[in-house]
């Protein structure tokens, strides 16, 4: 039974991953990733990580991916043809097409050799023993206890990080100075986005270059 589930989830995982990389439309890529995440949650369950699996589905697939969907809907799917995608711009793009494949292959080869060829005996086993109970391995209570005792610092830091990210996202994506203004603006560079409003380069400061 576990083996059957394993292969099912494994195929789903890899299929989702391939879909993310290959599919043209970003929307389809997002959907492929959602599938991948759910399959991954099943794999987590098979590894007795119940809480993490639940978190994966609820947070990752449920919140982060929904965010993605919203953004893709807003931005619009700038789909690129396969040829165009692979051609890239100039020598960099075409070189990278080949390079990506080679690099990926090399990386996979290395990792597989590392995993399977080194003769690590522990990986060949099924893992440590398992005894069910209220605070057994993988239960929320188990995780919670760990978080609040051994990994308190990581816990607090992670929450702080979330706060910063939220503030940062608001700052980055807000409108500047009222509605409809951006239509008159000339093409600005991304660096301008990171600048506070009244500053500029020295040339702009002395009035040589006008900042629109």
């Amino acid at each position, binding site marked *: 039974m576990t083996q059957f589930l394993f292969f099912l989830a494994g195929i789903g995982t890899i299929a989702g991953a391939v879909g993310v990389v290959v599919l043209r439309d970003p929307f389809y890529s997002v959907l492929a990733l959602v599938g991948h995440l759910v399959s991954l949650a099943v794999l987590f369950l098979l590894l007795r990580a119940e809480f993490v699996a639940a978190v994966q589905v609820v947070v990752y697939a449920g919140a982060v991916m929904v965010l993605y969907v919203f953004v893709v809907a807003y931005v619009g799917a700038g789909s690129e043809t396969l040829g165009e995608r692979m051609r890239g711009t100039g020598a960099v793009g075409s070189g990278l097409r080949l390079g990506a494949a080679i690099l990926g292959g090399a*990386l996979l080869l*290395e*990792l597989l050799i*590392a995993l399977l060829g080194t003769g690590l005996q522990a990986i060949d086993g099924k893992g440590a023993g398992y005894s069910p109970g209220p605070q057994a391995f993988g239960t929320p209570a188990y995780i919670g206890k760990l978080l609040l005792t051994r990994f308190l610092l990581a816990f607090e830091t992670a929450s702080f990080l979330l706060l910063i990210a939220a503030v940062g996202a608001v700052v980055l994506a807000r409108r500047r100075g009222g509605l409809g203004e951006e239509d008159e603006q000339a093409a600005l560079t991304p660096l301008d986005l990171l600048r506070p409003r009244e500053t500029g380069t020295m040339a702009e400061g002395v009035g040589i270059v006008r900042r629109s």
Partner: protein
Amino acid sequence: MTPTTFGWLTIAFPLGGTLIIALGYRVLPGRSAGWIGTGAIFLAFLAALGALISLQGHTPAHRQLASSLWSYASTVGIDARMSILVDPLSVFMILVVSGVSTLIHLYSISYMDADRGFARYFSYLNFFVFSMLLLVLAGNFFLLIVGWAFVGAASYLLISFWYRRTTATRAGIKAFVINVVGDVGLVLGTYFIFKHTGTLDFLKAFHATTAGAFGAGSDNGDLVAGCVLLLVGAFAKSAQIPLHTWLPDAMEGPTPVSALIHAATMVTAGVYLIARMHPLFERAPAAQDVGAIIGATTLLVAGTIALAQTDIKRVIAYSTMSQIGYMIMGVSVGAYAAGLFHLMTHAFFKALLFMGAGSIIGAMGGEQSLQKMGGFRKALPFTYGCFLIGGLALSGIPPFSGFFSKDEILLVTGERGGWHWALYVIGYIGALLTAIYTFRMIFRAFHGEPVAEARELEAGHLHHAEVPRNPATGEQEDTDVGFPGPSHVIAERAIPMRVAMGLLALGSIGAGLVQIPKVDFVIDDFLKPSFADSSQYATHTRSGLLVAGLVIGTVVGLAGIAIAYRVWVMQPGTAAAARARLRPLYELFVNKWYFDELIGLLILRPAAAAGRFAAGTFERVVVDDTLIGGTTGLVRAGSAAVRAAQSGFVRYYAALLVLGVTGVGFYFLLQS
């Protein structure tokens, strides 16, 4: 007070004069800068007299006194102290220097009256006197070199005093550069002497030499080399061949400057040097011979050039060169007292001649060419009288002072025997030439038909040129600062000038009385303690040669005057006819034996070419293009190569990241 205290005072007064005038010229009223300067030098003269009197209070054996104020640097065996040496030789020199300087300062007060650089002039002049006194009173090579260099600097400042005249500034630079060549010789010579004696102090070095620091015999290689290098310094300062080309050009300076520096004092520094270093020279006869030969050559060559010059100041300048040739020859053959005696008398009559020249140039409104002068006898009687006195003294006519001093030199030269007879003969030929050119100058300027300026002056009006011009090139000037002032002065109308010239005339006449042969030996006896360690300081003379010499000298002088009279007064066309017949000889003399052209060809043009090569080719191609351009080019190329890696493509960077991870993983795989 001790002699050395007087010595320090002698140096201190002119230094004080310089500083007061230089720092306070804005607050000094009217022409007081001139009187302050003159007063300072007069005080120095009094201090020199004090030194003389107090020195005579010592016994002859103890008349060489050194005094040191402080030690400037004392390391690695070099003892550089601020020390002066007061002995008869230096007292003699400071008396001559300060005495003649006082009179020249007095003369300058009138001469430079209308010049806008009046205070600057007196400050420079005082500085010069300070340097000369320092040079003469120096007690070790260190201060000697310092004084030597200062004197050269003062000469430069004063030659290019009228600094807006290009001819003057060029002359100043020429003088300074040639003087620097001499300075190098002096310093190198000092090194050789220091190498063997181990000390810079004069008395210690001389004692070491007598004790055998250079070996027992004579003509030690290092000693000869050192003495010859010292001679190079002496020749540059005293304008002897081949370092003489600066002296005629130095006539660009104001006439009192020519009188002081280039007649009486600075050019005599070389003579003083050889006399002071006599213990070294006496042990290097080869160097002495070099000095004697160069002195004789110079006196002959300069005499011939003076025959053909038309600028009155240049005639007197070449005359100076010639007379200093006598002095150099004198001290190189051992006639120390005679040479120094001639130094003193020459200072008197040469300064007198220059002062007279200044007067007649003033009467001509700034014009200096003999060809434009004539017949000033009635218009400038006092000047004429002074010129006559100076000219007679210069020509060696008894009983004027020049006669006694010049003949004594030639006497000692003849007594040395051997090949020195050639120098003896050259000396008398030179005396003949001296008489000829001196009276040529006098007859052309004062005899004959009065020129327009002379007639103007006889009528009572001093001539003024409407447009001031450079006397050498004729180009137009103005009378603002940097050029001579608007008005000119003549001796007949300025009391300070007449006082100075009168005193010098008295000196020219009477100075010979102190050393009449066989009658009194004031100079000989006075200087003897300085030359106690000399083997050549002989005071006895052979009567036969003595009388013969005196007679020949008189005859030669009178013959010269007679020739000049015939050519330039009685038959005025003779000079032009002689010029036409002896054309090549005349060309040689008028072009100063082509020394300037020779130096230009051998030294100046290669140097200029080297400079052009360095600036144009080497600097441009090697340094700018290759070294600097190459280095920056390399850096630019390198950074361009590196810049290519910053493509801005994010995917590229990601690919590099993954490549890195793969590489590291590969490495670890290999490890295990």
